């Protein structure tokens, strides 16, 4: 996501519902990694407010607090249907992940079929390169490289990123890739772009290389909503019976 979802548009659940609809199970297990925000409490709270009200089993992992609450990282993440990465500092995100071995665990997750989602830093991290403002001015920054190419985000919301990105692609310092507005989601199946969606009208994505190509997103509508009220009510009833 170039931006959007529960942290940026809590009143509009379209992208978060879309993410849930990609899972392999009807009541998916979804885990937030709020690392890029330094495990920010506001991000964690908003995640649970959004996903706690949906037919899913939501949890988060605060990597900074593992010392006091140790959990088996690999097993827990491999047990998810969706790993959702929040926004923040791309540089900080990758530094912490590498220090703790999350880069390898997440690749295993991806290869095992876990849906990897995220916005902003949490979207660029899957590519070879992104554009970070972690050092102040926008600058290119390497990602995990599961997806070939590069991504820049907040094309409409933070216009200073795009020229830095275009120049870096043009001079060959980073490979070609994509630029996405806030509210735009790019779905990759394997390494192939499968769909471009948007939570709001009049948003766009660009494919940027030797030429630029405009990608017209499909506007998400009510029919893309994940689950319906009856499902949610039933799920909650079952959960309360299980005593959770």
């Amino acid at each position, binding site marked *: 996501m170039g931006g959007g979802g529960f942290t940026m548009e809590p009143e509009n659940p379209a992208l978060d519902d879309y993410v849930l609809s990609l899972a392999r199970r009807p009541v998916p297990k979804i885990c937030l990694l709020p*690392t890029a925000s330094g495990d920010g409490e506001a991000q964690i709270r908003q995640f649970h407010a959004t996903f706690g009200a949906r037919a899913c089993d939501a949890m988060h992992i605060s*990597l900074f607090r593992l010392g006091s609450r*140790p959990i088996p990282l690999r097993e827990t993440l491999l047990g998810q249907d969706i790993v959702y990465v929040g926004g*923040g*500092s791309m540089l*900080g995100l990758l*530094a*912490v992940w590498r220090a703790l071995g999350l880069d390898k665990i997440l690749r295993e997750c991806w290869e095992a079929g876990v849906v990897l989602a995220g916005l902003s830093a949490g979207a660029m991290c899957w590519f070879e390169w992104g554009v970070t403002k972690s050092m102040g001015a926008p600058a290119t920054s390497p990602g995990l490289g599961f997806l070939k190419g590069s991504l820049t985000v907040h094309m409409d919301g933070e216009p200073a990123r795009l020229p830095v990105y275009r120049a870096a692609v043009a001079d060959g310092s980073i490979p070609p890739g994509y630029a996405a507005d806030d509210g735009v989601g790019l779905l990759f199946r394997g390494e192939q772009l499968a769909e471009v969606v948007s939570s709001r009208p009049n948003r766009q994505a660009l494919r940027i290389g030797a030429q630029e190509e405009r990608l017209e997103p499909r506007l998400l509508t009510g029919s893309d909503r994940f689950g319906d009220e009856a499902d949610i009510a039933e799920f909650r009833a079952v959960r309360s019976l299980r005593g959770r």
Partner: protein
Amino acid sequence: MEPNNPLLDQYVLGLCRRKKPRVCFFPSASGDADHYVVRFYRHFSSDICDPSHISLFRRDCGPGKVREHLLKQDLIYVGGGSILSLLGVWRAHGIDEDLRAAWQAGVILVGVSAGSLCWFHSGLTAYHHDAKPYQGLGFLSHSNAVHYEEESDRRPAYHQALRDGMPGGYAASDGAALHFIGDDLHRVVLSRPNARAYRVEVAGEDVVEHPLEATYLGERPKLELAAA
């Protein structure tokens, strides 16, 4: 920043030459946790010093400005949390070099828990059943262990690491502070009368712990004079 115990805070402020020392807090090891930043400002209020902090995860100034800011400080205080995350984030932002420059310029570097471990050559991560060695910034050539009396698995893990070749070093319990000048231990001070610190090293096939002489910073209970 111990609750209701300002002794170590007063001690580090007392090391500064300026009357109102400039103190910069790094909460990086906690992921820049809001509650920790607030706690810093409560303990290091503007009545007693000139406080500031740097949040790398919520940052809007450039790297040149960070170094400039750090070089102006009397004291840099590093908070606790995850040592691996701390070192990873610092290295990614080039803060390790900024801190070396500050140290060489005479800025006093202090910290608690992960904020202590970071200055040394090496140590062990705190994951409870899975302590692993890591390389710190290495400003001090020794190894370091913290929470040494409080967490029962730290001592055996540290001893094993020393036998496996980690350089000898210093272990401290909560409330014990190791004060180095350059690479040499200058003194040990305590904010709690029962806190302890040790020099720990391999001797032959054994690991030996030398308890270090330490000064309690609080007032000692007055001795009752024997009746004349």
